[in-house]
């Protein structure tokens, strides 16, 4: 007689994808995330499409408050009932937005792993690192036996570049440095060999040298485990370093998508160009940085559905922009941008030229 557990197990296994799968692992179509508040509804994400492919990295790029993290969390349905999801998120053939809670929590941490932003807060302060890794291994039946799971945990720590694994397993999070904690968070996220890894600003809380190490670790792990990686960041440098494709987000929508090199070298949207111009680089004289004026619309501000959300901050905007929302159109092979005015590559002067002009 098949018990309830067996039934659940089969269902979760159906969703697990083959390791050699090179198709689109995760497909997001028209994703909308709406929060209900007393003051009314807040539309944090208003229709986002992208897909993740095994072994490839998609970077979600944008300022704070553009809906990047909300998108990442909504994929895992971490908001529970406080958010309403619209559109579709498919893992292989399985629709996640309507999946039952039990199967969903079996997928979390097993098929889809997540690396949190702040490594200091994301580990339980009261439990030793080893216990926290072992717990995940046992929860997802990777290794139900405690002592054996500990051996695997030690191996995972080695895998993320911690060579003193026996001591670290016994340590509590506050005894370790930020970089170490982030490595441990990564070890937990990859413990069950997920097909999809979601990293929400995984290097923001780290200093620059450690950032580079952690990013390098990400690319190594991705190659070895053939994971599809979704990396959320506001850092153009990080995007260039790890990304294959990039999706630029503004006010809950994608404004530009395409291969990283192409988008960052020849942006098709004024917002992408603005992000690039706001990036400090060695050799740029003081005062030459051009910030995008203003700030993204806050959660309490109304964003009209039939206007370009960037219009109030955009140097290229004309009267048409506040009455018509431009769709994503192909501006170069594989590169889409949502701007009618530019309709191609944004004309830019390099910051150095701008400084001399």
């Amino acid at each position, binding site marked *: 007689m098949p018990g309830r557990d067996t039934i659940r197990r089969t269902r979760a296994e159906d969703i697990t994808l083959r390791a050699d799968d090179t198709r689109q692992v995760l497909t997001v179509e028209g994703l909308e995330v709406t929060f209900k508040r007393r003051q009314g509804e807040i539309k944090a994400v208003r229709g986002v499409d992208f897909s993740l492919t095994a072994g490839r990295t998609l970077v979600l790029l944008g300022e704070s408050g553009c809906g990047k993290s909300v998108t990442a*969390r909504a994929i*895992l349905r*971490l908001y529970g*009932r406080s958010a309403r999801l619209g559109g579709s998120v498919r893992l292989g053939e399985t629709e996640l937005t309507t999946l039952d809670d*039990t199967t969903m*929590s*079996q*997928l*979390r*941490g*097993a098929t889809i*792993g*997540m690396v*949190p*932003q*702040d490594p200091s*807060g*994301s*580990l*339980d*302060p*009261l*439990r030793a690192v080893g216990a926290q890794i072992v*717990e*995940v291994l046992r*929860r*997802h039946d990777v290794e139900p036996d405690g002592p054996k799971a500990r051996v695997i945990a030690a191996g995972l720590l080695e895998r993320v*570049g*911690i*060579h*003193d694994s026996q*001591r*670290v397993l016994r*340590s*509590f999070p*506050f*005894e*370790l*440095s930020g*970089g*170490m904690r982030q490595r441990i*968070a990564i070890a*937990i*996220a990859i413990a069950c060999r997920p097909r999809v890894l979601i990293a929400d600003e995984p290097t923001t809380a780290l200093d620059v*040298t450690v950032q580079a*190490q952690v990013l*390098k670790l990400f690319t190594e792990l991705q190659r070895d485990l053939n994971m599809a990686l979704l990396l959320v960041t506001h850092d153009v440098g990080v995007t260039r370093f790890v990304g294959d494709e990039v999706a630029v987000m503004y006010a809950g929508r994608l404004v530009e998508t395409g291969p990283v090199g192409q988008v960052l070298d020849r942006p098709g949207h004024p917002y992408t160009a603005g992000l690039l111009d706001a990036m400090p680089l060695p050799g740029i004289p003081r005062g030459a940085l051009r910030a995008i004026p203003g700030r993204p619309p806050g959660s309490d501000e109304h964003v009209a559905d039939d206007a370009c959300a960037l219009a109030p901050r955009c140097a290229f905007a004309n009267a048409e922009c506040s009455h018509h929302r431009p769709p994503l159109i192909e501006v170069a092979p594989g590169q889409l941008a949502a701007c009618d005015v530019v309709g191609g590559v944004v004309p830019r002067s390099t910051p150095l030229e701008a400084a001399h002009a």
Partner: protein
Amino acid sequence: MSATTVDLAHAGAATRRPSYLTRLRARPPGVLVGGGIVLLLVLIALLAPVLAPYSATDGAISQRLWNVGTIGHSLGTDGQGRDILSRLIWGARPTLVAGVVPVAIAGILGTLLGIVAGLGRTGVRSGIMRTLDVLYAFPAILLAIAIGAALGPGVNNAIISLSIVLIAPIARVAESEVLRLRAADFMEAARASGASWPTIALRQVVPNIAPALLVYCTSLVGLAIVYAAGLSFLGLGVVPPHPDWGGMLNDLRANLYDRPLLALVPAFAIFIASIAFNVLGDGLKQLFDVHEGSAA
């Protein structure tokens, strides 16, 4: 890269976690003073048969109402000629039981309700907390008397009524601690790694709210002792002739004008026991480093 990693590992080794024992030796006088008195009370209660010089229930009418300081009866005798010291020693038992047991029962139930309310949906939380607010609306001692009177006299009934009274405040502290914890990143991280709500409640929530609740419950024991004494004083607690500090206070109250010192003896005992638990609670707060406001 590997060299840097090793360096990081060694940097971590420099910080050693001070054990509770080290901290206990170093600081809080509250734990030592309060804990010392509490320990003494427990020993007195346990060793009552050895320590009590006379019977707690039988007295000689000829020796009634001897004052404090009488040779042979150092704390005097009551209206029925029973040795007050002996009654005080035996009375430590129901006093401690009526102080600790209701807090323990309410602690378990209140924490459970608080966790469910704190983790649950808005509807569940409102349901639990607003129901408890109804209990909270009555003055605690009045509610205890009402429930105690409905159930009738006896130690068990006093414990039941005090347990009910104490659930609401404990659940409220537990809920606010859970809500504070809910915002913690590691709660979301646990969810993102596939943990179910019951697992999170057991693994993350309980250990993290335990210090604050332990501190709060310790000081509640002091309050429960006073309430229990109050119930006994009104005849709703320990049934005579068994000794109990609240009941003794009520007996000796009749002779407050001719023998004022006698009534002061059980009153002082209640005061000391209650203060001791409060001081211990304050000391534990320092020891566990519980932030101000969370346990209030």
